[in-house]
């Protein structure tokens, strides 16, 4: 019975959009909860991936390749963002080992 059901039903675009929304929510929660800058960065990656999934699902649904091109650009910008962000985190943590996001409330070095 279950096997028949699994074979018969194909996931629609809505499934992917809902999964993207859930993933975005988890990433947002993590970004607000965690205070380790590295983990906060990973949560941003989660949110970017949620948006990518939404883009691809709708691009396939609408038959428009523009959505996949947008995902390509998101990936490039995410790579650049990770490089710059981790550079900033390294230069902060080298000066203050073990700093959390709460310790970095002011710009004074």
């Amino acid at each position, binding site marked *: 019975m279950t096997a028949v*059901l*699994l*074979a018969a039903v*194909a*996931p629609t*675009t*809505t499934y992917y*959009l*809902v*999964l993207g*929304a*859930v*993933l*975005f*929510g*988890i*990433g*947002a*929660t*993590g970004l*607000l*909860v965690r*205070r*380790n800058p*590295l*983990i906060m960065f*990973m949560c941003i*990656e*989660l949110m970017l*991936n949620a948006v*990518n*999934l939404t883009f*691809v*699902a709708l*691009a*396939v*649904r*609408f*038959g428009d*390749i523009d959505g*996949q*091109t947008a*995902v*390509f*650009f998101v*990936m*490039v*910008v*995410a*790579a*650049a963002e*990770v*490089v*710059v962000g*981790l550079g*900033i985190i*390294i*230069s902060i*943590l080298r000066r203050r080992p073990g700093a959390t996001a709460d310790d970095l409330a002011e710009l004074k*070095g």
Partner: protein
Amino acid sequence: MQLLVFILASVMVVAGAFGVILRSNPVHAALSLVLTLFGVAVHFVALEAHFLAAVQIIVYAGAIVVLFLFVIMLLGVDKAEDLSVEPFPIQRPLAAVVGVGVSGLVIAAIVRARDTIVAGEPLGADGDQNISALARNLFSDHVFAFEFTSILLIVAVAGTVLLTRKDKKGSES
């Protein structure tokens, strides 16, 4: 079969995402992130976006997570942190409310707008067609944006080298 793949990949994605935000050790969080990224890549394959699936594995799992792990090891922060410390007591419940609220609102909007998502012409089911269609779109309609990303990458790399350089004179700044 497709539904089975969807469910398995979704379990990977959600379990990895919870691993990122709940594990106290940053190394475990980074490895959970790999699980999520692989799950998203499986979804891309299921949606017949083959090129993006490959790029997802190569760029995200191969480069970005490795960079994360490299920084974790370089800074020596691969110790489990104490998650029971909570400087603002109301922060976690509020964050959970915000996360559930954002997800709930977006899901409600999706369910409401479900019927307006009309199907367009299907993209090519063949893997080669996906790549050639993407390439044609990228290098004709979006060629300026493509060139600007190269500038962006060069600026990012040069900026990072400048940012993380140790000051030879040993001054404070």
